[in-house]
C-alpha cells in the first residue's frame, strides 16, 4: 500500500519535473513545479516527516511559487516563449546527464550492498520521528545556532531583495 503510493508520487514527481525543464512557457513550467512540490510533500508524509510535508506546501507551494508567478507576470514572460529555448550544446548535456543518472541509479539501487554503513540497521528502522513537538524542541535547543544564522540569512535576503527590486530610491 505504502509502496504503491510511493510509486505513484515518484512517477508524478519525475513526470512533472521533466515537463518543468522542457516546457517553453514559463507559467506552465511554474505550475508544473507546484505540482511536483505536492507530490514531494506526499513522499515526505510517507517518510514520516509530516511537519516537513506541510512546510513544503505552505512555504514552497504557497510562498515561493507565488513569488515566482508574480515575478514572471511582472516580467512579461510571454515574449520569451517564441525564442529559442535550449542551448546549442543541449544534446551533449542530455547525453552526459543520462550517463550520470544511470551511474547514480546503478550505485544507489545496488541496494544494501552499496551501503555497508547500514548493515547494522534493519530496513524498517525508521521510527518516523517527524512529529512537530520533537522537531520543535530539537530546533530550539540542539540546532539553535543554525536556526539563528538562518534568521540572519533571511534578513539579509529580505533587505537585499528590496534594494535590488525597488523601482527608484529617492535621493
Amino acid at each position, binding site marked *: 500500500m505504502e509502496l504503491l503510493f510511493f510509486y505513484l508520487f515518484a512517477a508524478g514527481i519525475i513526470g512533472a519535473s521533466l515537463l518543468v525543464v522542457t516546457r517553453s512557457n514559463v507559467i506552465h513550467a511554474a*505550475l508544473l513545479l507546484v505540482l511536483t512540490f505536492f507530490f514531494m510533500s506526499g513522499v515526505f508524509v510517507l517518510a514520516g516527516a*509530516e511537519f516537513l510535508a*506541510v512546510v513544503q*506546501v505552505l512555504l514552497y*507551494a504557497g510562498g515561493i511559487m*507565488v513569488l515566482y508567478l508574480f515575478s514572471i507576470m511582472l516580467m512579461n514572460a510571454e515574449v520569451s516563449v517564441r525564442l529559442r529555448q535550449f542551448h546549442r550544446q543541449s544534446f551533449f548535456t542530455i547525453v552526459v546527464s543520462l550517463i550520470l543518472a544511470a551511474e547514480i541509479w546503478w550505485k544507489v539501487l545496488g541496494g544494501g550492498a552499496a551501503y555497508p554503513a547500514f548493515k547494522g540497521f534493519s530496513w524498517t528502522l525508521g521510527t518516523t520521528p517527524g*512529529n512537530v513537538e520533537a522537531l520543535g524542541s530539537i530546533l530550539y535547543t540542539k540546532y539553535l545556532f543554525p536556526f539563528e544564522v538562518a534568521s540572519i540569512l533571511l534578513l539579509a535576503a529580505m533587505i537585499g531583495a528590496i534594494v535590488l527590486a525597488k523601482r527608484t530610491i529617492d535621493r
Partner: protein
Amino acid sequence: MIAELIAAFLKIVLVLGTISLVVAYLTYLERKIIGHIQMRMGPMRVGWHGLLQPIADGLKLFLKEDIIPSKADKIVFVIAPIMVLVPAFVVYSVLPFDENFYITQVNVGLFLVLAVSSLGVFGIVMAGWASNSKYSLLGAFRSAAQMLSYEIFLGFSLIGPLMLAGSLNFQNIVKAQSDVWFVFYQPLAFIVFFIAALAETNRIPFDLPEAETELVAGFHTEYSGMKFAFFFLAEYANIMAVSTVCIAVFFGGWGGIDAIPLPGIVWYLLKMAVLIFVFIWIRATLPRYRYDQLMRVGWKFMFPLAILNIFVTGLVKFLFL
C-alpha cells in the same frame, strides 16, 4: 479496513454535500440580509420569500454558455476554477465539527489548514493570467499581494492561542478551551485574525481583487457558467472554513454552556450562524479600502500587533504558568 474506508467516504460525502448546499443558501441569506439592512426585501419571486432562488440561480449557471476567450491559455483557464475550489474543500478534511464528528484528525491540523488555504491564491493568479485580459491580470495581482501578506498575519495571530493550547491538533485546541474560550485570553489575536480572515476571503472591506468599479469584477471577469459558479462556491466555502477555524480556536468549538444540554454540533452551528451573520453585516456596512491603505494597515498595524501578542503571551506564560 473496508468498513473504515466506507465510513470515511460517507463522512466526506456528507460534509461536502452539506457544504455545497449550505453555500447555495448562503448566497440567498446574504442577499436577504443585505436587502433587509438596506430596507428592501431581497429575492421574493421564486418560491415562498424567494426560498427557491438559489436553485434557480444554480440552474441558470449550469445551463449558461461556457465561454473560453479565444486568446486565453486554454488549459490554465480551465484548471484555474478547480484550483480555487479544491483547496477550499480540502481544508474541511481536518476541521472539527463535533467531538466525534470530523473527517480525520492529524497532529499538524491547524498548520495544514493554513498550508492548504494558502493554495487558493494559485487558482486566482492562474485565472487572472490565463484570461489574457488586463483587468483580470490586475485583479489577480492585487489578490496575490493581498492574500500573501494577510496569510502571514493570519498565521501569526494564531500562534498566541496555539501557545496556550500547546497543540496543533484541533481536537486538543478545542479541549483546552473547555473552561474559558481563548477569545477572552487572546482578544488582540482575535481582532487580528478576524481582519485577516476578511482579507483572506476577499470580503468587503478588502474585496479589492474584484472591485467592480475599477476592475470589472477582477480575476473572474472572463468567466461564465459553471466555472464562474466554482469561484463563487469556493468563496463561500472559504468563509465557512475560516469561520470554523475561528470557532475552534477562539470560541471553544463544539463546547457550549453546561446549563443548556445541546449536542456539540448544534452549538457549533449556532456559533457558525452568528459569525456568518457578522460577515454579511460587515459587507452591508463598510466601504472598500484603497489598495495602499490595505497594505499599510496590514504591515504597519496588524503585523506588529500580532508580534506583540505573541511576545506578551510568551511572557505571561513564562512568568505565570
